[in-house]
């Protein structure tokens, strides 16, 4: 197990959003500029203070339409940034690879204030035709998804369904357990003006929803949106200069198994487990110290896998932990995805969780606020890559 000796506990000093919605009709470039300028303002900084920038993914071939944001260099050019550090990357520990890389650069003193953004225009790019399988853009796919795609399993819904079916088979997880996640998150979304789906969902609504890939139904799948989210990662010694701060206490980036959905040793665990273990190895805080959880839910079973991976319950107990929403809902022992998750808040590809973690720590979560929040865990990724971060309230 690695022992971290040089992590300087960088801070997140600003958060910014563009508009978030379905088919906004604005370019990915303009959404990105909106979010970055808002984040820099939120930190109380000027663009001239920004000397680092990162994003995920990079300008690689798109997995599906609207997945990639704008080109990193074009963003740097549009904002006139002069940087000491920059990185645009597609392969790494899931959706926070960019945040963690920036935090590492800040921690090492390579830069002082790094902006990190994630932009998606999947709703506009899909258009009226709706969601397609992966790889429809390209004529050939390479890499760790290519065997899956070549076999006829063209959607992550299929791959996730394999995992969920196995988890049900081994541990007795039920559709009602998954339904509790969907229903609870929809209830939270009703309190979030930025959420895209806010009407009431009952368990009957969930159980009657059309099947996407059994056992997954429509309400187990997240909703593509257009939007951009940006943060500023800053050196800890700047805490007095910025408007507010949240400390990046620990991060988990480990991947200790084969990076393939189909060859993962056991389909009842994922890279979530490696990342969570790595994160906990680098802090004295423990699951019992966590006030609020923000957990990737591109498909609802990921919440169950993350809860088990993070140690909030035992292996195989995740379904029973979320049953009825009593633990994860308002007033529960572990309020989870208090913004509505990607199931109801929209598919901001992990970044909605980071934003809500910051709102909870900064006391700006309005009607969703969990009083006294001091420690939030954020976990992103499903399948063979994952990352997690433990964030604490700054000074």
């Amino acid at each position, binding site marked *: 197990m690695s022992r971290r000796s040089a992590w300087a506990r960088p801070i997140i000093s600003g958060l910014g959003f563009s508009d978030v919605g379905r088919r906004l009709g604005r370019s990915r470039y303009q959404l990105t500029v909106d979010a970055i300028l808002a984040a820099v303002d939120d930190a109380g900084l000027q663009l001239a203070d920004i000397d680092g920038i990162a994003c995920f993914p990079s300008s690689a071939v798109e997995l599906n339409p609207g997945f990639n944001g704008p080109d990193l260099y074009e963003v740097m050019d549009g904002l006139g940034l002069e940087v000491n550090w920059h990185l645009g990357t597609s392969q790494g520990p899931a959706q926070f690879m960019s945040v963690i890389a920036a935090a590492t650069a800040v921690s090492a003193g390579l830069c002082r204030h790094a902006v990190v953004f994630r932009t998606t225009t999947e709703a506009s790019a899909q258009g009226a035709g709706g969601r397609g399988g992966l790889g429809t853009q390209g004529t050939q796919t390479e890499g760790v998804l290519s065997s899956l795609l070549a076999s006829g399993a063209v959607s992550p819904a*299929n791959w996730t369904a394999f995992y969920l079916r196995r988890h049900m088979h081994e541990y007795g997880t039920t559709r009602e357990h998954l339904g509790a996640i969907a229903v609870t998150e929809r209830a939270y979304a009703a309190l979030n003006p930025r959420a895209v789906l806010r009407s009431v969902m009952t368990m009957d609504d969930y159980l009657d929803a059309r099947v996407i890939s059994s056992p997954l139904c429509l309400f187990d799948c997240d909703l593509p949106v257009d939007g951009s989210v940006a943060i500023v990662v800053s050196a800890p010694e700047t805490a007095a200069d910025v408007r507010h701060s949240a400390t990046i206490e620990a991060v988990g980036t480990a991947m200790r198994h084969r990076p393939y959905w189909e060859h993962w040793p056991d389909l009842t665990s994922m890279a979530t487990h490696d990342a969570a273990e790595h994160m906990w190895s680098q802090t004295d805080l423990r699951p019992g110290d966590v006030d609020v959880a923000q957990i990737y839910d591109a498909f609802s079973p990921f919440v169950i896998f993350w809860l088990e991976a993070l140690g909030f319950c035992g292996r195989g107990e995740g379904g029973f932990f979320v049953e009825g929403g009593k633990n994860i809902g308002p007033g529960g022992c572990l309020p989870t995805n208090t913004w509505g998750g990607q199931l109801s808040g929209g598919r901001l590809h992990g970044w909605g969780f980071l934003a809500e973690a910051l709102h909870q720590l900064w006391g700006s979560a309005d009607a969703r606020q969990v009083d006294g929040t001091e420690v939030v865990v954020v976990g992103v990724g499903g399948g063979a890559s994952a990352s997690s971060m433990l964030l604490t309230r700054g000074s």
Partner: protein
Amino acid sequence: MTLPIDGYEALGVRPMIEPEMEAFWEAAARGELVVEQCDACGLHVFPLRGVCRRCRGRSMSLVVVEPPAILYSYTVNHHPWAPGMEPYPLGIVEGPGLDGIRFVGLLAGFDGELEIGQPVGFAFHKSSAIGGLTRLHFTPWERR
């Protein structure tokens, strides 16, 4: 559910074939499922790599995987990725003694309930979706 392969041969995305994987697709065209096996330590390796991740050996042999494999999990896809698609089942299988390697494919000809742990046989079909390559799918296993 019985599923003819006709019509679902159009489902999939063409893989870029690295030099190491050419032998796999050539074997599939002959109706054989192959993996690598390390000549030094015996580890089975897939995708084909030319290197053993356990002992770093560089001498690998192709071995044919014989059915039955065991159904490890499955799903029935309902969402129509193209207009007019009917539901179809997909399976993920593992072979006994294959060091954790699993294969994914369409399940063809399965009537009644699918059951984790049931044995499956192999069959192959040409797929226009993957540039005319021949790929594996799974069939009910008839005990001989």
